[in-house]
């Protein structure tokens, strides 16, 4: 979820200052059962919600992943790791993994540079830039379903806008394909993803750009650095923390993509746009192989978890020490 940005950044810097410092005055430690009861009273609602609706489902998925189960009736057909071995022998599922990777690579090499480019453009003195910013961010506010239906209509073979546009541009070979052809469906989906999400990354980059002190750029200018050199050697390094957060969110968003794909193609034609989340949904809710679908959930979870831990440990960690823009050196 992209909305976790502030969270991540905040969390990092809070960790940066070891919190085990002695309690400051005015931050009393609880003494006696009355104080403990008060602390518990404040903590319990969030804790219960979190345990029941966030953590417990993971446990349930791990558990049901070991069974062959149709979703109704007793859980009595324990199959061990059979669901998992089946998964990794399933060509379609391996394809799902590959498609996840495909979306990640395209997001990082196309979407984020495009968002950064737009942010740099809109960070200049420019008439109407507030309007442009608001406009470019607008698709992010729309629900995935509305976006997906809109682009389904645009890419409709024969009568959609995309076919007419391709005709005008002399790209007749694309007509009638888009979402309907296995070889074009993924790039087409990616275009829709860019439309929907680049404005969000642009906003992050803009916030990052604005926190770069103009004195630094002026100083570089006085030292004779050209526009490109200023960008390459001043702006880009100082934007590092923002870029690393953006990369993190892109990766997590790409591997759990569901809504857009489900509404536009449902994973088709012939699995060519299927993602892991789509496969999980298909098996869990359409084909009633709930045990197998749970195993897919668990694999998706493990991938997210391992990636998050590694990323936080080895990449975001750099932001803890002294990056100028993140305030991490505070």
């Amino acid at each position, binding site marked *: 979820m992209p909305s976790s940005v502030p969270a991540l950044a905040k969390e990092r810097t809070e960790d940066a200052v070891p919190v*085990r410092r002695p309690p400051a005055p005015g931050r009393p430690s609880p003494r006696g059962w009355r104080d403990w009861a008060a602390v518990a009273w404040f903590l319990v609602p969030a804790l219960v919600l979190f345990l029941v609706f966030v953590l417990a489902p993971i446990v349930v998925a791990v558990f049901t992943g070991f069974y062959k189960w149709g979703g109704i009736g007793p859980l009595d057909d324990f199959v061990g790791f059979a669901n998992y071995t089946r998964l990794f022998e399933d060509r379609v599922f391996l394809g799902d993994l590959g498609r996840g990777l495909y979306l990640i690579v395209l997001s990082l090499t196309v979407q984020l540079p495009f968002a950064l480019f737009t942010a740099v453009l809109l960070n200049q003195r420019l008439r109407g830039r507030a309007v442009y910013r608001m406009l470019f961010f607008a698709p992010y506010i729309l*629900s995935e379903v509305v976006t997906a239906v809109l682009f389904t209509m645009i890419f409709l073979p024969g009568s959609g806008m995309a076919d007419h546009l391709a005709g005008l541009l002399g790209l007749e070979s694309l007509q009638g394909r888009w979402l309907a052809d296995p070889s074009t469906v993924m790039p087409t989906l990616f275009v829709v993803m860019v439309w929907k999400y680049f404005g969000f990354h642009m906003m992050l980059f803009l916030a990052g750009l604005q926190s770069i002190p103009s004195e630094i750029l002026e100083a570089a200018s006085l030292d004779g650095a050209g526009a490109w050199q200023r960008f390459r050697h001043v702006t880009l390094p100082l934007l590092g923390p923002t870029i690393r957060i953006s990369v993190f969110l892109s990766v997590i968003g790409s591997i*759990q993509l569901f809504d857009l794909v489900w509404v536009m193609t449902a994973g088709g034609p012939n699995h060519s746009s299927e993602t892991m989340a789509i496969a999980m949904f298909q098996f869990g809710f359409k084909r009633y192989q709930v045990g197998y679908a749970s195993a897919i959930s668990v694999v998706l979870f493990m991938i997210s978890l391992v990636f998050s831990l590694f990323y936080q440990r080895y990449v975001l960690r750099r932001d803890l020490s002294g990056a100028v823009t993140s305030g991490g050196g505070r």
Partner: protein
Amino acid sequence: MNVRRTARGLSLHSVIWLIGAFVVVPLVYAVISGFKSTGELTGNPFGLPEEWKIGNYTGILGDGMFWRQIANSAGIAIGTAFVTVAASAMAAFVLARYAFRGRELFYGLFTIGLMFPFAVAVLPLFLMLRTFGLLDHPLGVILPQAAFGLPMTIIILRGFFRTIPAEVEEAAVMDGCGKFRFFWRILLPMARPALGTVSVLAIVASWNNFFLPLLVFNDPKWQTIPVGVQQFQGQYSTDYALVLAYIVLAMVPALAFYAVAERQLIGGLAAGATKG
């Protein structure tokens, strides 16, 4: 020099206009197409309608189902925001202002929730909600949404609560103010901007959520707008102009909310990424 600057300005503007067209053309296409008949749309996808027919739009606006979905989405969004913010504010309060044993453990527990993709939880959540009897019940959507909103909300609010000086609390305690009163009468009113930001984030996330309402609500009377849009598309899949009119009308509340709450929304999303 001046000529160069003008040329540069022109090329800058033309690039921005190109990006703008990429964003805007699909939206404008939808709005204009809603005024056409499907027959005309197929033959004339770009031009203005020969005759601006408002029948698609008025037909949907006259349909009780559309308003029902809007009301459901609004109710669930408000309920979600309320539960998320209430539970988070309470937890963030003690996590920010009291040094008790295990505090960082609890805080860490909440923050790892950020790594859990919703898609992972949705199948077991469905099974659990079925056991609890919460299918076809608004709480079946509100409670999980609120739970998944907790990590981010707690982190933002804890950060904010920490900025309120200890002197404020000391003064309140001197005046005989207990924890509960301090929280309710002093801290929350002082935190109004932060509460506004997290509420806006919770409302937008809930309004757009599709996966969970799709599974939880079988009964059409609970359907939210994203589910309704998908159903409508399935039902009228050949009446393209009507489907486009429907999504245009479905966009209006979200865009209107964005226009009103833009500052909270972007502030909430972007501030943390840079300020930390």
